[in-house]
């Protein structure tokens, strides 16, 4: 019977593949863009369920999606509190601080060639620091609450955002900048009317990179000390209790929140940089 389930998994896989191949050959239609990844996702989940059951994998190692789903529903309240603690308090505030600070520093760097030549190489070195290692230090400095998580996120976000914004502020081409000069525009006018709009796509690129970093950073930091709630706390204590279904439910929350955050920033990007060819193409 177990072999049968594994076989069924293979059939599901073939079916999913076939459906997507058909979808790919269809003409573009609204909603179709969503259908293919959904088919893919459902295929993966079905295969997971069948393989886990078919091979009798212990729930303490890898629970089937159905168990994860029910854990998600049963623990909804706790998961929501964890989400508030980790995402809304830790990740979002760190994201705002890190990206905001990087933006201001980028403005300064853009004005000063000295800073640019001095700060960016060092910035690249610091950006290569594995922040995982910073997490215990920040817990020591900023306490067990969300503040230390925000600090980790802020540091993680700072350099990608800085590098992108600096690049963006230099993105206006020479002719566009010369035009401002012929108008004898002030530095502020040049910033507001040329540099910032031109930097938009780069700034959003930085913001998008930081969305995924933010959640990961906040969760990782919780592994090094936390109050008795939070997504990282939940994952690590529930692994200790072998409640893997709850652990995966938290991971599901993380993936959903991360993807939604990413999607939200992408929508903002589309609205703000509608003029850029990459946004017009579709």
């Amino acid at each position, binding site marked *: 019977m177990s072999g049968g389930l594994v076989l069924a998994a293979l059939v599901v896989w073939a079916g999913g593949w076939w459906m997507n191949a058909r979808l790919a050959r269809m003409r573009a239609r609204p909603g179709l863009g969503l259908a293919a990844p959904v088919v893919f996702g459902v295929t993966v989940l079905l295969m997971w369920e069948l393989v886990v059951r078919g091979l009798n994998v*212990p*729930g*303490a*190692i890898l629970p089937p999606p159905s168990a994860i789903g029910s854990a998600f529903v049963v623990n909804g309240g706790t998961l929501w509190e964890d989400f508030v603690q980790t995402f809304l308090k830790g990740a979002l505030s760190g994201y705002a601080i890190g990206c905001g600070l990087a933006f201001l520093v980028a403005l300064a760097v853009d004005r000063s060639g000295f800073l640019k030549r001095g700060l960016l190489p060092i910035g690249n070195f610091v950006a290569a620091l594995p922040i995982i290692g910073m997490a*215990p230090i920040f*817990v*020591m400095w900023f*306490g*067990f609450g969300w503040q230390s998580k925000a600090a980790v996120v802020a540091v993680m976000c700072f350099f990608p955002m800085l590098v992108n914004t600096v690049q963006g502020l230099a993105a206006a081409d020479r002719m566009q900048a010369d035009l401002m000069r012929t108008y004898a525009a002030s530095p502020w006018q040049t910033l507001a009317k040329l540099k910032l709009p031109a930097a938009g796509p780069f700034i959003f690129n930085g913001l998008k990179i930081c969305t995924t970093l933010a959640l990961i950073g906040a969760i990782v930091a919780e*592994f*090094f*000390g*936390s*109050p*008795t709630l939070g997504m990282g*706390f939940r994952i*690590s*204590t529930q*692994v*200790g*209790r*072998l*409640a893997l279904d709850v652990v995966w439910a938290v991971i599901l929350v993380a993936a959903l929140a991360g993807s939604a955050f990413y999607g939200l920033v992408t929508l903002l990007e589309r609205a703000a940089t509608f003029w850029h060819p990459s946004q017009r193409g579709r």
Partner: protein
Amino acid sequence: QDDDVTLQLQWVTQAQFAGYYVALENGYYEEEGLDVTIQPGGPDIAPPQVLAGGGADVMLNWMPSALAARERGVPVVNIAQPFKSSGLMLTCWADSGIESPEDFRGKTIGVWFFGNEYPFLSWMSQLGIPTDGGDDGVTVLRQAFNVDPLLQRQADCISTMTYNEYGQVLDAGVGEDELVTFLYEEQGVSTLEDGIYVLEENLEDPAFVDKMVRFVRASMRGWKWAEENPTDAAIIVLDNDATGAQTEAHQIRMMGEIAKLTAGSDGTLDPADYQRTVDTLLAGGSDPVITAEPEGAWTHAITDLALQ
């Protein structure tokens, strides 16, 4: 041809596991015809999970965690109990005004989770102290496995082991007179610590049972040697530490403290200790570790044969 045995530790290499390293280095396992591999653990490795996945034959674990795993569908069985008494305690600043457990109210306490929170929660619920903060209850921090929260005064009390973290607090330059300690053992809420566990289904295999008999016999021999030669045992542990981060002084002191915990045991589990552990856990508060009296969670079959 030696039989292979993989042992999963529940923490990084340190003198807490001296007996096994001694048995390995002194050739006791070899004499029993065993080829033993010792896998160190870590902060996020749950030994029962490793056992369930087939990554190890035998594991060390604290009993609360092992019993919880049993309820969760990973049927582990205690086959030997080298640690007689518990080394777990709370260490508090004396100047925080804490003199008795009643004074915990309104204070912040660092607790290890990952299965180690059970005895604490059960203790607090016996005392009737809520653990969700407020003036009347304690604020619980999930403490990482170091003593910084105490030194940085982020917590009034933290969890320590007599053999490890407590020493670190002293090493940092804090005087013993500045500290107040509460040994779980003395509070009557102690639970059994490092025991040797295997999967229940394996015990039906006589060859496996035989292997475990030899393993326990050699391990206990190692422990007794370590108790008698604490310095040498510590050096053996150091030799096996791949991180190169441990210091000799710390491991020697740790070995001295560990010897006190193993002293009363020949490896046989005392059913009274077991019952006390179970009672403590069943008395746990709202989020109990185990909901029912476990059955078949221990056996004397191995130790009876090993200690003949």
